[in-house]
């Protein structure tokens, strides 16, 4: 038995040249990209840019609160300022790592709160190039992760991690992520389609230190096949502001408190 184990370890050894595994890198990356602080608030401007250059704007406040460890449960609350036809609309997600999320939408014109059935894997978030999963995070266990190499990107040392979905539940066949070795933020991502061609590219274009948390405050997703792209800017952001549990309720979906959405 011991002999077999030794052989197995020998076989694994060449793969283990990095101090960490791909999964560990992606776990840390998700923790710093989507789970920093106890809670987080941002005023978000999304610019949806068509191939021809026409722009559409989505402006919202996003509030997020962590429940448990990074990678665990989260509650997300969004209030839309723009465009005019969705002004005052609110949207709430209870995110669970191991099962489908719960989602609610408030439609102000008829004062109605409804559950929505959107699947997060492939659905576009408000018509942008980001999917719901890009916004709220994909389960680490849904992919096989491996570190391909280490290289510099814009002067930062990065791990280049390949993530291949275990099930055919997304549009891409694999994704490459350039993860900053210092703060573990994803600085660049490339999505490859079933034919192995690059079709979607993500870049973190600005990183700011907010209350000691390195935060991506400008990012972009471009669809190389359609030419459509989406730029996201956090014009205001803050951590650990004491968001109450009660915010994530039907009551406040219908009447979002000014102090949280402003």
């Amino acid at each position, binding site marked *: 038995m011991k002999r077999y184990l030794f052989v197995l370890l020998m076989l694994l050894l060449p793969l283990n040249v990095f101090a960490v595994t791909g999964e560990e890198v992606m776990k840390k990356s998700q923790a710093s990209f989507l789970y920093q602080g106890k809670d987080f608030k941002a005023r978000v401007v999304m610019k*949806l840019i*068509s191939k021809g250059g*026409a722009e*559409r*704007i989505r402006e919202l406040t996003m509030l997020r609160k962590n429940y448990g460890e990074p990678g665990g449960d989260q509650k997300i609350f969004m209030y839309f300022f*723009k*465009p*005019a*036809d969705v*002004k005052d609309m609110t949207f709430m997600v209870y995110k669970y790592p191991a099962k*489908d999320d*719960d989602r609610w939408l408030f439609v102000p*014109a*008829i*004062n*109605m709160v409804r*559950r*929505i*059935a*959107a*699947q997060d894997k*492939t*659905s*576009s978030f*408000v*018509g*942008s190039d980001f999917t719901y999963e890009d916004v709220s995070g994909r389960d680490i266990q849904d992919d096989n992760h491996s570190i391909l190499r280490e290289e510099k990107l814009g002067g930062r040392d990065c791990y280049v991690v390949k993530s291949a979905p275990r099930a055919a539940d997304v549009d891409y066949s694999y994704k490459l992520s350039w993860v900053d070795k210092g703060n573990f933020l994803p600085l660049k991502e490339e999505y490859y389609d079933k034919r192995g061609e690059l079709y979607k590219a993500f870049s973190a274009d600005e990183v700011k230190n907010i209350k000691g948390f390195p935060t991506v405050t400008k990012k972009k997703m471009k669809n190389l096949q359609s030419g*459509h792209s989406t730029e996201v800017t956090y014009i205001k952001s803050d951590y650990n502001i004491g968001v109450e549990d*009660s915010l994530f*309720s*039907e*009551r406040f979906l219908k*009447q979002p*408190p*000014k*102090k949280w959405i402003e």
Partner: protein
Amino acid sequence: MSKKNKQSRIAIKQQGSRFLLYLTAALLFFCASALSSYAADVSIHGFIQGNYSADVAKSNPDGGDFKWAEERLQLKLDANKEPFHFFLKADAFYDHIDNKADIELREGYVDYTDKKWDLRAGRQVITWGAGDLIFINDIFPKDYESFFSGRPMEYLKKGIDGVKIGAYPEFASFEFIVIPVFEPNNYTDARRFYMFDPMPSVTNRETKDPATNLENTELALRAYRDIAGFDTSIYFYRGFYRKQYMIPDNLTNTTKITFHYPKLSAYGASIQGRALDGVLSLEAGYYDSRQDRAGTNYTVPNSQTKFLIGYQRQLWEDFTAGVQYFTEYMHDYSEYKKAQPGGLPKDKKIGQLTSVRLTQLLMHQTLKLSLFSFYSISDGDYLINPEIKYNFSDNLWAAIGGNIFGGGERWSQFGQLDKNDNVYLQVRYEF
């Protein structure tokens, strides 16, 4: 204008003037509190809209070819000064069919918010229940004419003039609503729509709203919380049917018909949650027809039990399908059969209605193709509503759609609307 319409217009006017009083009081209250410290933060939004619906099956009963033709300006005013919030939504429109301009107060209320409770007083829209265009516990007023004429969906819901109190203790949340002034549903106008009328020769008609007094004040209560991941609500309502029922003065030789709104109490429950990779909704209700519990009075509906199951799921990117099955059971049916006069159509003991909604979003969600349809299993009639909506920009959108009715009997819900098929256009610029 028919007498019925005149009556309801007068009723609305009276209600309007009463409401103005509430509004003025609320405004004064709000302004006073705002002035006491600093100016409230105020925003104004709204839209300009054109909305036209043309007959495709047959001209209207009065000869016109449009079910709806209007331009409309909506202004929404929001003012905040914690703990108060003031909201006003008013429409000004020009109706090309009646050649008149008018102003309509859609909503107007003041909110007061405390940590564990809140209050909203004034004209407000309330939506309850888990159904998609099938209402069991949403006993608030609706405008079906608007729905059948190809107007935007929000115009299906009418506001109520009343007070809503919300209470939010740890174990559950509550909404308690008091409505002092009765507001009926609005049904199709006899000049614009062909509808079933059992006594077309009787033109002397009158509608009696319930008198506005303490005894007739409507009460509605909803208690809700999460139970095992499902949004669970229970409902109670004490008030009136919002559909009118007729009382002929004499059955064999009718010279006058009086329409009334019988007393109703409703009890119900709903749950909605994630199941089978989609959203599952269940709702049930019991309608206690308080004026005729024995079911022997043909001018008052019998008590009923209603049940709804709905399921919605995203099948592929930006495509969602929803199906619903609704059934209602009439209590004391043998009494109903005995009491119903010979010349009037008889409802079935068990009514069954199904609905399908398909929605596909395309071109970064700027193009929306949708199809909604009702099919009644018990009556064999249907409504089909296809629609294409396109957002030209963040501010400008247009929708083209149709309403197709048919099947069933000439008195059944959609069968009677058979000759009213229409195509509509909605164009809106939002700011």
